[in-house]
């Protein structure tokens, strides 16, 4: 009898732990698509003419490359660590024009055009800020601002 009890207890604990930590263990997401490999260098000249985006590209802050092909974004929901108050450079390569919505307070919009464009956002409060596309509805990035 005690053994059966023990097994029951063990099974329950396991279920509870698995059930609650269903987040999947390994994700301290270190995906930093900011790595300036390959395609980046020649693009700093092509800045986006949109008023909403910053015009000066600073090389010191985090640099994130985004690709949109049709309705597919790469990355799609990745977590990137950035410093607060520091410029985050978004290099967007897209086959259509569109906009991204930065859920900081206050909110910011990034309008990008077809081709490659470079944008800057600055977030001055700590928190996790989502960068969303609304057409299609997707979370493209989560900026972990510290």
């Amino acid at each position: 009898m005690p053994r059966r009890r023990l097994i029951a207890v063990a099974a329950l604990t396991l279920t509870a732990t698995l059930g609650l930590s269903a987040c999947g263990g390994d994700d301290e997401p270190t995906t930093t698509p900011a790595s300036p490999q390959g395609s980046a260098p020649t693009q700093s000249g092509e800045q986006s003419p949109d008023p909403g985006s910053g015009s000066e590209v600073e090389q010191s802050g985090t640099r994130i490359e985004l690709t949109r092909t049709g309705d597919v974004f790469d990355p799609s929901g990745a977590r990137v660590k950035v410093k607060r108050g520091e410029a985050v450079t978004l290099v967007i390569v897209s086959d259509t024009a569109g906009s991204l919505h930065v859920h900081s307070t206050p909110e910011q919009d990034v309008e990008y055009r077809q081709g490659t464009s470079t944008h800057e956002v600055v977030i001055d409060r700590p928190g996790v800020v989502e960068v969303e596309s609304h057409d299609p509805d997707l979370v493209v990035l989560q900026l972990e601002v510290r």
Partner: protein
Amino acid sequence: MDGTVLAHGLGGAKDLPIPVDMAVAGAVAALVISFSVLALAWRTPRYDASRGGLPLTVPPAATALSWVLRALGMAFFLYVAMAAVLGEDTLVNPVFGSFYVLLWVGIVPASLLFGPFFKAVSPARTLAMLVAKLTGAPADRGLLPYPERLGYWPAALTLFAFVWMELVFPHATQLGPVRLWFALYLGTMLIGSAVYGTTFLARADPFEVYSTLVGRLSVWGRRDGRLVVRSPLANLDATPVRPGLVAVVGVLLGSTAYDSFRESPTWLRVVQSLGIERAWPDTAALVVFTAGVTLVFAAATVATGVSDHQARRHLPDLFAHSVVPIIVGYMVAHYVNFFVEFGQRTLIDLSDPLTTGADYLGTGDWQINYWLSMHPTVLASTKVLAIVTGHVLGVVAAHDRAMKLLPRKHQLVGQLPLLFVMVGFTAGGLYLLFAS
């Protein structure tokens, strides 16, 4: 532009994940304290609903005061309803903040301080009472007696309907769906109370059931109809046990856990790679979390030896009150910053409900204080402390109940499954705060 700004949730940035060392420290503390409670705490039940508590004399003005509260609750409801009908369909409309933040999250602090707060201001209850007055029927009884075996099951359903709307439904921050949800809610409550009297509201109104349950952790209680002041744990122990109570706490705890989970990068990647409307996998996950918590907790409570006159199937509801402090701990951890900051935003927006540039309440020029966001360590410590405190109170409440219900020879071992599950809930909650 208008079209796009509508399609997402309230609030800007979300909280940073808590640091791993804090999460681990919290989990270890919970584990150690739990087993200390088990090993060292009292061996005879301590809390008894029929005794204890300091009786208070209720002044004659109390009846008048209760109608003032009802009038205020009604006025607030009508004010927000006006914004819901005539206001602009954007996030600056205070309807969303009033519904999801002031009401839903605000229920917790208000009920902790004042007891069953929502019951005192509920527009549904006020309307039901007025209707009863007009027809000359006693308000608490309707055409039929409330079927007691239904217990709190209706509230479990309506609570699920609320959290689904809040956390899953993609258009939760558009006026149309919010109006529809609230109309259905109010309609159900009015019809239900016409049939079953206001007892129906105490069993089926999601806000009232939630508020009254959390109010069990206030110092305000009732004994033989008299108002008493007593320790929150004694008050909690006096929670009436009815069928479905375990499902109510399961929905409340599971949905809060799901709220962290749905924002984790892992889940985000999964739902976005499926290529189907996000609401489907999200609904499935919400069901898994709420039903999962309910079932795991229920299984843990029945995994004990019982005496002959104790039906095992009643145990889940008999222990369910012990989840209430854990729910409150989770709610504080998840929403404290959101409540403080978006609550301020809502108070500002409420001053101009129709976006006409008005400043009816004089709060229009307030500035939001972001102190808590700017101090992530304070915020993270508050969260861990809230979760661990809730856990400890939950363990104590369950321990006392076990002393009362379980036969002597099963008291120690019989508590173990429940203790493990509670530690699991707490560790899981901390993990979600760390990983999302």
